[in-house]
C-alpha cells in the first residue's frame, strides 16, 4: 500500500517509520514547520525511544521555581530544596511515588499487552486509590493536600498549566501535571529531537510542501493537494496536523459524518499562551524555569481569559537552553509590554521575537495557536480523542490532538497500530 503522512513532528515520523517497517510505501508531506518546533524542550516519548532503539532521549536538568521576589525552589526527582518547609521535603518522595505510579498507569492505557488494571491493583489498595484520584483533582486540591510552600505549589502548577487555558482551582487540572510528569518533562528536557527519527527514515520520500486540502469522494480521501506542488494520491492518508485544521479546514466540516463534524466543531483549542524567543541563559545550567508566585496568582492570571481578556500579571515557563519563554495568558497588544516587564524583572535580556496565539496559528497552521493540537483536558482525552482517529475509511489522525497526545511520537505510534487495510469501495 502507499501511505502518505502529512506533518513533520515526531508523531508523523513515528507513524511513517512504523508503516515503512510494515512494508508499505511511505511518503511524507512536511506541510512546513509545525507547532512542535516551538517545543524544542519536549522530549520524545519513552515508547518511541524503545520502539526505535533510540537510547536515552531525556536529559535530566531539574526545574527551578522563581518568585517575583527572586526566591527560588529547586525540584529534582530525588529531593527539593530552597523555599520549602521540612514537611514538604519529607513528603516529596511519597508524592513522587504517587505521580510515578499514576504516570505508569496513564501511559499503560495506551500500550498493548499490558494488564493495566492488574498493575494498578498491584500498587495496593491505598496507593491505587491515590493514583486514581490524581487526574480527577484540581491542581490546588492535589498540591494543597501535599505541600505547604506556596512557591513549590505554584511551580508545579505553572508547569502543569503551560500551554493550557485552565485555572488551577478547577477539578481535573491535576491531569495536566500528570501528562507532563508522564513525559519526563517536569525534571527533564529533550536530548534528541525528531531528527533522530528522520535519520532512520531511509526510503521514505519527503515532499517539503505546504498542504492545501484533501479531496473526498465516496467516503474516502482521494488525494492530498499541495500548494505549488503535485496532487498526491495514496491508499492511506495520515495527518499529524491538529484535528480542526485537518478536518475543519483541509477536508471541510460538511464532508464529515455528523458525529465527527460535531466533535470537530466542539474541539477546544483556544490558546492564550504566547511564546517569546529570548537569549538562552547559562545561569540556570539548562534547567526549566517557572516564573510564578502562588496557586492563587495562577488562578488570577487565568480569570480574565474567561471574559475574553488577558492576564494582568502573567506567569511563565522558561526553557533556559533554547531560550524559549512560554507566557500565560496573553493575546492582545499589551502582551509585548507584559513580556518585556517579565524579562526585565528576571534579567532575561531583550525579547527577540514574540509570537501571540494568533500568530502561532497563522505561522504553524495550528488551530487557535494551541501548542498541543487542542486543550489537554479530561473532557477531550483518551477514548474521547479516539473518536477522531479515523474520520474516513482510509484517513487517520496521528497528531498531538489524538491520544495519548503531545508531540513526542506516542500518538504516531498509536495511530500506526490502528491503521487497517481500507475497504475497497466500488
Amino acid at each position, binding site marked *: 500500500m502507499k501511505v502518505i503522512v502529512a506533518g513533520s513532528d515526531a508523531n508523523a515520523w513515528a507513524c511513517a517509520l512504523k508503516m515503512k517497517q510494515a512494508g508499505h510505501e511511505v511518503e511524507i508531506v512536511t506541510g512546513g514547520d509545525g507547532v512542535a518546533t516551538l517545543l524544542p524542550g519536549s522530549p520524545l516519548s519513552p515508547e518511541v525511544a524503545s520502539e526505535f532503539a533510540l537510547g536515552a532521549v531525556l536529559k535530566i536538568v531539574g526545574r527551578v521555581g522563581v518568585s517575583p521576589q527572586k526566591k527560588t525552589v529547586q525540584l529534582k526527582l530525588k529531593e527539593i530544596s530552597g523555599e520549602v518547609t521540612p514537611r514538604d521535603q519529607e513528603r516529596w518522595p511519597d508524592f513522587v511515588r504517587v505521580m510515578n505510579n499514576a504516570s505508569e498507569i496513564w501511559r499503560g492505557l495506551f500500550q498493548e499487552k499490558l494488564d493495566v488494571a492488574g498493575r*494498578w*491493583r498491584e500498587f*495496593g*489498595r*491505598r496507593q*491505587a*486509590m491515590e493514583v*486514581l*484520584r490524581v487526574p*480527577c*483533582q*484540581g491542581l490546588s*486540591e492535589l498540591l494543597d*493536600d501535599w505541600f505547604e510552600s506556596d512557591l513549590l505549589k505554584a511551580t508545579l502548577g505553572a508547569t502543569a498549566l503551560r500551554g493550557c487555558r*485552565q*485555572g488551577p*482551582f*478547577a*477539578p*481535573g*487540572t491535576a491531569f495536566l501535571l500528570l501528562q507532563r510528569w508522564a513525559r519526563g518533562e517536569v525534571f527533564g528536557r529533550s536530548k534528541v529531537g525528531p531528527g533522530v527519527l528522520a535519520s532512520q527514515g531511509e526510503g521514505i520520500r519527503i515532499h517539503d510542501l505546504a498542504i492545501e486540502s484533501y479531496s473526498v469522494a465516496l467516503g474516502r480521501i482521494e488525494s492530498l493537494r499541495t500548494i505549488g506542488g503535485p496532487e498526491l494520491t495514496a491508499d492511506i492518508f495520515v495527518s499529524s496536523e491538529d484535528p480542526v485544521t485537518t478536518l475543519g479546514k483541509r477536508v471541510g466540516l460538511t464532508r464529515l459524518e455528523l*458525529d465527527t463534524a*460535531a466533535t470537530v466543531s*466542539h474541539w*477546544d483549542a483556544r490558546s492564550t499562551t504566547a511564546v517569546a524567543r529570548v537569549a538562552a541563559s547559562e545561569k540556570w545550567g539548562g534547567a526549566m524555569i517557572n516564573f510564578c508566585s502562588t496557586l*492563587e496568582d495562577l*488562578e*488570577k492570571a487565568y*480569570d480574565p481569559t*474567561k*471574559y475574553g481578556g488577558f492576564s494582568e500579571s502573567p506567569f511563565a515557563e522558561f526553557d533556559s537552553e533554547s531560550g524559549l519563554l512560554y507566557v500565560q495568558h496573553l493575546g492582545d497588544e499589551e502582551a509585548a509590554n507584559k513580556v518585556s516587564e517579565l524579562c526585565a524583572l528576571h534579567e532575561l535580556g531583550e525579547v527577540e521575537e514574540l509570537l501571540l496565539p494568533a500568530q502561532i496559528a497563522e505561522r504553524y497552521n495550528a488551530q487557535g495557536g494551541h501548542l498541543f493540537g487542542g486543550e489537554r*483536558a*479530561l*473532557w*477531550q482525552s483518551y*477514548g*474521547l480523542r479516539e*473518536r477522531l482517529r479515523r474520520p474516513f475509511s482510509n484517513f487517520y489522525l496521528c497528531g498531538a490532538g489524538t491520544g495519548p497526545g503531545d508531540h513526542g511520537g506516542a500518538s504516531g505510534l498509536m495511530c500506526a497500530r490502528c491503521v487497517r487495510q481500507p475497504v475497497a469501495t466500488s
Partner: protein
Amino acid sequence: MQKYDAVVIGGGHNGLVNAAYLGKAGLKVALLERRPVVGGATITEEIYPGFKYLTGSYLISLLRPQVIRELELPKHGLEILPLESTVAPLLDGDYFADWPDHDMTRQEIERFSRKDAESYDEFNATMRRIVFGVKPILDMIPPDPTSLEPHDLAQMARVRGTLDRMERRDFHTLCRLMTMSAADFLDEWFETAPLKAIKSTSGIIGTFLGVRSAGTGYVLLHHYLGELNGVPRAWGFAKGGTGGLSQSIARSARAHGVEIFEDTPVERILVENGRAVGVATAKGDEFRADRVISGAHAHPTFLKMMDPGDLPEEYLADINRWRTRGPSCKVNLALDGLPDFPAIPKNKRALLRGSIEIAPSVDYLEKAYDDAKYGGWSRRPFMDALMPSLLDPGMAPPGKHIMSLFVQYADADLKGGWTEQKKAEFLEVVVDTLSEHSPDLKDKILHKHIMTPDDLERVFGLTGGHIFHGELTLPQLFFMRPSPQWANYRTPIKNLWMCGSSCHPGGCITGAPGRNAALEILSEVKEQVPV
C-alpha cells in the same frame, strides 16, 4: 440504661430515613437529634412570628420514589406541590422562562432562537437517556474497585452493566459531562445567552466552582436526576416547607417504633475494643446499641464525636482533606405583600409562583464566583428566589408573603471571618441586588434573616456550611465518598456506620444515603441471625 439494636445520630432527613427503614425491619432504634426539632437542614422555622422560614433546603426533586413509597410518606402527611416554572428576569427588561413541560420551554426558546428550539429537542432527549442510564447508580452500594472480593466484583459488574446499556454516543456525552464545565457543555448546544445562564445554574448549586469550572457538568447532571410523581426533572415544594417532609418521615419512623429524642446532642461515640457500642449525650446519658449510625457530616462525626486516635491514620487523612468549604447562603424575607418584577409581564404573573432566578447571563454567574473565590463574596450574587406563600398560603399570614432566597457565592472562609457586621453587610448586598429586579421590594420587607455558611455550620452542623456535606466533585463521588475504601456506608470502626450526604450519592434531599445504608445494615443483620 436502655440497649438498642441501633442508635442513629442526627435527625436530618437521611438519619430519619435510615431509622425508619431499620425500625420497619423490626430493629429497636433510637434517633438522637441535637436541636429541639428533627429535620436537620430539611426544616421549617418560624423565626419571625407568623412567617414560616426555610432556613435550609427549600425544594424537592431528588427524593427517591422508593423512599416515599416504602415509608408511606403520603400516609404520614407528605404533600408535594409541583413547582410550575423557573423564570430569570434579564438585564434588558426581558425575561426567560423554563417549565418542566418540554413544549412550553421550547416555545419560550423560540422567542429567542429557532435553531436553539430545535437543539432543545435533542438536548432534552439526550439528557433524558443519560439520566435514565445513570439513575440506577443512585441506589447502588459503591464497591471498592481495588478489591477482588466477590461482592465487590459483582457490584463493579453491575455498575459496568448499567453503563454498558447506554448507547456509545450517550456514554461519550456522559464522560464529557462528568468532566467539563456546565457552561462549556451548554455552549455546544445553544446560542441563546439567557437559556445557557438559566440551565447552567444547576451546575453550581451548593458548589464552590463557577459555571465555567470543569466539573460543574456533573453537578448539573446531579440536579437532573430528580423526578416527581414520575415526571423526570420536575421539582416540588412540600406543603408546610421542607420541614413538612422531615416531619412526615419522622411520623413514619415513629409508627415503625423508632424512639426519637429531640434536644439530645451526642457528645461522644463510644468505642470499645475498636467497636462502636453506643453514644454518650451532652446531658450525660448513654445509649448503648449494637450499632451506631451517623447521619451527621463526616467532620463532626470523626473529628468531634470521636477520639481521632481510634481511627486509622489514612482514614483520618481522608476525612481531614475532605473538601467542604461552602459557597451558599440562605436568606428569608417576610414581605408585606407581593413584590413586583417589572421584567415579568402582567399576563405572565403566574411565573411568580415558580422559582425566580437572578442569573441574567453566564458572565454574571462566573463573575459572582470570581468575586468570592479568594475569600470574599459576590458583589452581585446568583440567587434562586421562591415565594412559598404563593404555593402554600399557610406559610405566611393572610395577605403577607415570604420569600426564600438561595444565594451564592459567599466564602465560608471569609477573610476576617463572618462577624455580625459582615453578615449584615452581605444581607444588604443580597437585598440590593434583588431590588435591581424588583424596585418595590425594599418597601415591603418586614423582616429579613440570613444564614451564612458560618450559620449553616453552627446551626445545622454542616462543616464549612456545605449543603451537600462536601463538594460533589469527581474525587469525592461514588466509591471515593467519603473515603476510598469506606464508601459502602461502613467505617473503619466496627459497627459504626454513615448514612448522611457525606456518603454516596451525596447531597440534596434524596433519602438515598439513608436508605442505602439501612439496606446494607439489614443485609448484615440478616447474615448474623441464624435461620
